[in-house]
């Protein structure tokens, strides 16, 4: 009995501390591995002759993975927040200049409905003098801002290299760097993307511009980040940030500003109703009776 109880206790303890335990709230720490430091041994290196995936193959798979992701999206809804923050990298305290919140519904092939939820400005302009930051969303659900450099056509414009790899659980994440083939292309950015090789979808992107496109007014774009989040089986846009520095101070903004776009509260492939996009047909007019 004592033995059985001990086995039972040990089993329950093991089960309780297993990483699969769903009862533990919050992030589960990775399993701790004991380090043996009293014994040393050397083993000869093992040469692996298996064919390694080439960069071209990776690029093909990323293009296919992104296209597959796009093709599986039938509809989506999300809350879109656009925010402009002034004095973002100055001695002054950063200051919210404008915030726009909308609910966006999109459905194939190109239907879109945007419902404004809030518009806030630190200093509302006079009537007729409005100059807003407006983020346009078309009906398509392609996320070109993430994969523009990895579409098949873009291979003509960019050159690529593998900048790194890391293993996260059983996901292998590749870090791919890209830059314009022509050094004279001032509008094409350079950058890095992190690609999950399980479904070859881009998880994150960091973009840099070697030169300012308009040096006279724009000192530079310090940092631009595009993040994705997983919703059900899809990686979808999560946040886009850009920090811009200008050569001349702008009203309310100063010489540095952040543009932040945030995508929250996603619904994906829920079968959005027609009524969201199409106005109900007008009631038919009564027929003339002839009298």
């Amino acid at each position: 009995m004592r033995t059985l109880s001990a086995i039972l206790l040990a089993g329950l303890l093991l089960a309780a501390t297993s990483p699969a335990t769903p009862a533990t709230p919050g992030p589960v720490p990775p399993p701790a591995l004991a380090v043996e430091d009293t014994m040393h041994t050397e083993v000869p290196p093992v040469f692996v002759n298996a064919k390694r995936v080439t960069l071209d193959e990776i690029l093909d798979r990323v293009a296919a993975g992104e296209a597959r992701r796009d093709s599986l999206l039938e509809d989506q809804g999300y809350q879109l927040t656009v925010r402009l923050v002034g004095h973002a990298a100055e001695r002054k305290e950063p200051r919210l200049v404008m915030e726009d919140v909308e609910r966006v519904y999109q459905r194939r092939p190109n239907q879109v409905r945007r419902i404004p939820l809030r518009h806030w400005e630190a200093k509302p302009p006079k009537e007729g003098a409005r100059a807003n930051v407006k983020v346009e969303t078309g009906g398509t659900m392609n996320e070109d801002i993430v994969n523009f450099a990895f579409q098949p056509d873009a291979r003509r414009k960019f050159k690529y290299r593998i900048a790194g790899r890391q293993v996260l659980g059983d996901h292998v994440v590749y870090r791919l760097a890209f830059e314009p083939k022509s050094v004279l292309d001032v509008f094409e950015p350079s950058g890095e993307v992190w690609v999950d090789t399980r479904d070859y979808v881009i998880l994150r992107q960091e973009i840099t511009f070697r030169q300012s496109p308009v040096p006279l007014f724009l000192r530079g774009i310090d940092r631009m980040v595009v993040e994705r989040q997983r919703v059900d089986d899809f990686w979808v846009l999560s946040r886009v940030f850009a920090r811009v520095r200008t050569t001349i101070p702008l009203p309310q903004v100063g010489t540095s500003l952040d543009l932040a776009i945030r995508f929250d509260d996603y619904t994906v492939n829920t079968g959005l109703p027609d009524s969201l996009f199409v106005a109900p047909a007008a009631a038919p007019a009564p027929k003339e009776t002839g009298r």
Partner: protein
Amino acid sequence: MNAQHGTRPGARARRLTALAAVALAAALLAPHAARAQGALPDTALKSWVRSMSDSTAEYFGLSAQPPDTAGLDSALEEGLAKPPGSRNVFRTGRRLALSAAPIFEFNRAVGAAYGASGALAYGHDLGRLRGSLQWANGPDDWYGTGGYAIRRADFDDEERAWSFEVDAGRRFESLNRDHYSAFFTFVDAFVYGTDRHSYLQRDGVRTSARVSTTGRWAELGYRNELESPLVTTATWNLLGRRLTLEPNAPAAFGRASEVRLAAGAQVPRTPLEASVTAWNAGGALGGDLGYHRYLAALGGGFGLGPHLAFTPQVEYSRLTGAALPQDALYLGGSYSLLTVEPQSLAGTGRAVAHVELMTLDGVQRLVGWKEDSAFPIQLGAFAGLAARWGYDPATGVPRVTPRDWPGSEQWMSEAGVSVMFRPGLPDPESYLRIDYAWPLGPTDREAKLYLSWKRTLYLLGRH
């Protein structure tokens, strides 16, 4: 009762053993089950995504904070209650837009031309009507065109686009069809009297359609215009200098019915870009003027380390059929050889090669003085080689020749240094350049200091 519900030692032990076995199995299988469900690996991926996201949020601070959700639900409810198409639904903002701008041009053929241009558009997707009207005090005549233009681009990719335009009217233009810098030519003519272009008048209609996608474009154009010569009517300039070139070279009179086909593409796996243009007039197209004109160009920018760029470019062009002054191939000036007077040489064949080594960053950054300057000054050194052939040696006017390549004696070369500034406006790729060039080899040409506004790969201009 007790016996019924009591626990017999044997049965209890069996139950405990079974429970222990289940617990052990659970313990042993848990990691595999977790792996099968993706819980462990996804946890690692999720925590990586979260850590990257946290570091981004830390960098962007206030910009990364989530919005206040107060009132959003009721606003959504209210918005959803309204039917699609009402004011709360996003629309492309279709509205009537009118724009207008004054025009002032000057050259020795038409003198001062005063006028205005305007455009009328209803939204972005229906195109725009446009027009201009000028009165030229030299010939005391009116010039003006009216037309329609539309451009539609893919929402996600601005380079995937098509456009169409048609214009009709009377205009004055340079005989040099390939390269013409409006602003600097105006300054040369109006201020200094150093404009070396000659001009003609064109009356008629012209239209073109263009499609483009990433790294490729094609254009088809047609024009039917009556071409007529102009004479010099204004010999003055602001500084009162004597004109560098007083007579305006006369164009041949006649109707041109011309088709133009142009295409460009990036060369795969290289930073090179190629473009070809063909103009054909006469024959089955009708009109009085018959000629065939071809131009091909290739160029690109190669990075040499982090700070330097090497930019080679070549152009080859040829004119067959009638060698008319308004279709000739001109040589000299900022688009070929700086040490040759602009537009001073004309022929029915032209070849140009130009290489340049330039800094990619401003000097201020290179010397560590300023990381990002509003006025990044770039430096360059260049060499050029060019030839024209097919001309009358006595008069220099173009003459038809079956030769497709110049003789060795017809090549001219030069070298030079440049100081450049790219403001990014109005054309993001154009540089304001000060070039100092000197001729190479035995020649009577002289070294020249030149101010110009052009792209680095100027031979790849889209004709």
